[in-house]
């Protein structure tokens, strides 16, 4: 047994220890993310890595004129604007339904969560069968007298991608909403009931308000995940998909292949600035809503 003794350095030593603890991680983050990111900002402002002439915003201007970048940004933005709100609303509805005492609640939870655990690469073949030119969905459409659609190589491809995104992400978001709804204090709802608040009032004015921080969080999360949709598109259609499915990550991959550091850096910096703005807006609104609930 160890002898009982006071920590020789006392509180100060503990503080130093807790500072030392974060050094390995900080070093890694600095080496692999922050310092190279600084270099990238620098790269985005010079003409080429050899002469290193400072060209101000020329690289960014060139980027804004690049048709591939514009297409990729448009497609990615379009996808996110459609898919992200759906990825918030649908799980919320499901969570509210599951909140009622429905039999087999935990089984349903498992079912909805399962896509998260299945690698997209494993099931992509089924998606291909479903949305093939002569695939299952088209056969069903034809049976009902509709006209078959070339899903993967037309603008309808976006719909397939959105479905795949929702399939993957709904379970995760639903869990977050279920726990948030479960966290609403019971007495608040009871008081509302006693005071004769209508169901709709209870929902919109109390529940939604209460879980608004979670809504914001799910929004951020889904937004981040929506930028990962490249995986699905790549697995489904490969390196060069139909024009409408050409995502930002495709653009990045192709720029990596040509090793155009200036274009690449400008794109990364530009994208990170947009992300920071979006996240800041969402975090500030979370802050405002959060306060609202506490008071």
């Amino acid at each position, binding site marked *: 047994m160890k002898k009982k003794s006071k920590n020789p350095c006392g509180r100060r030593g503990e503080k130093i220890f*807790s500072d030392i603890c*974060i050094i390995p991680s900080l070093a890694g983050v600095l080496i692999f993310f922050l310092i190279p990111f600084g270099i990238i900002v620098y790269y985005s402002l010079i003409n080429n890595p050899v002469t290193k002439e400072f060209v101000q915003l020329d690289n960014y201007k060139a980027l804004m004129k690049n048709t591939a970048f514009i297409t990729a940004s448009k497609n990615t933005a379009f996808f996110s604007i459609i898919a992200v709100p759906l990825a918030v609303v649908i799980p919320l509805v499901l969570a509210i339904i599951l909140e009622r005492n429905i039999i087999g609640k935990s089984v349903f939870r498992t079912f909805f969560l399962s*896509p998260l655990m299945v690698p997209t690469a494993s099931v992509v073949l089924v998606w291909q069968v479903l949305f093939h030119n002569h695939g299952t969905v088209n056969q069903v459409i034809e049976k009902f007298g509709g006209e078959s659609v070339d899903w993967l190589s037309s603008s309808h491809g976006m719909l397939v991608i959105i479905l795949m995104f929702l399939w993957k992400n709904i379970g995760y978001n639903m869990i977050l909403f279920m726990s948030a709804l479960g966290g609403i204090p019971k007495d608040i709802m009871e008081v509302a009931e006693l005071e004769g608040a209508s169901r709709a009032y209870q929902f919109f004015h109390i529940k939604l308000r209460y879980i608004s921080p979670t809504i914001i969080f799910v929004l951020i999360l889904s937004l981040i995940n929506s930028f990962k949709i490249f995986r699905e598109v790549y*697995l489904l259609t490969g390196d060069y998909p139909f024009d409408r499915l050409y995502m930002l990550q495709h653009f990045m991959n192709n720029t990596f292949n040509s090793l155009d550091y200036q274009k690449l850096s400008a794109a990364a910096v530009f994208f990170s600035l947009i992300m920071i703005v979006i996240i800041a807006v969402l975090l500030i609104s979370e802050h405002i809503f959060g306060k609202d609930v506490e008071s």
Partner: protein
Amino acid sequence: MTRKEKTRIFNIILTVFICVSAVLFIMPTVLTIANSFMTSSEISANYGSMLSNMENEKKVFISENVNLKFIPDKATITQYKEVLFKNPEYLFKFWNSVILTVPITVFQLAVAVLTSYGFSRYNNKVKNLIFFIYIILMLMPYQVTLVPNYLVADKLGFLEEVNDTGIWKMISEAKFMKDTTIISLKQRLAIILPGIFSPFSVFLLTKVMRRIPISYVEAAKLDGANEWQIMTQIYIPLCKSSLISIGMLVFIDYWNMVEQPLILMKESELHPLSVFLSQINAGDIGLAFAVGVVYMIPTILMFLYGEDYLVEGITYAGGIKG
């Protein structure tokens, strides 16, 4: 109709709705598993036209349509035999996935334990700023983070397919590793190292550790425990279930990876199965279902074993601020 009856009917409608959507959700997975037991002739009869379409060859197939089958006519395990025993290529790719994902998960958790302890025990302005930077970094998509990763990998010589610079030259000349081994090690490190320092698990674990009551620490200190003992004997055991759930989330994320190998791994031999699967789809469609099932086994097992942990982990993630 009384209000009670109305509610009951409403509940039944909702249950039916939920049932249908739940079935739709597991359909792709179930279909993949069911189809993996088909004979290769049955697969080419049903999905053959898809194959010919992809390779632009004019082959004649029984039916032009792609028939989605729920139950194979004759269940066999020949596809699995082929994948697991006859054709070592798939197992190699599976191993590629393991050798990338397991080190990332294990070391990311190890780093996260240490870091989160540092963040949760004492706070100051600098640390708060660092934590805030971690959050921003965590929210950055691959399109942003892969560029710095690539730059570092390039500077450290991870991307070269020869060993003639810096430390790699020294290792190569010391001759305790084959040159090809060094090259594959380098390419793997290019993905593993940034993965280890990804701030995701630090963020989650710090939130968990900040909830540990200070009185536990005080009590331990009265018993003469030092900081190291407080971390290993109080914090880690208390966070055990969170560690499992965070580990699962990290594992799934990297098991699914596509972006990093495409950019950071020049040699397609080393690509994980997740990337490779999209390439065999065009070729050997008969095996693709079985390979897909083999690939989902680790994550499915995790899910069956630790669903509650997973749910707990996701719940902890709720809310950006601790």
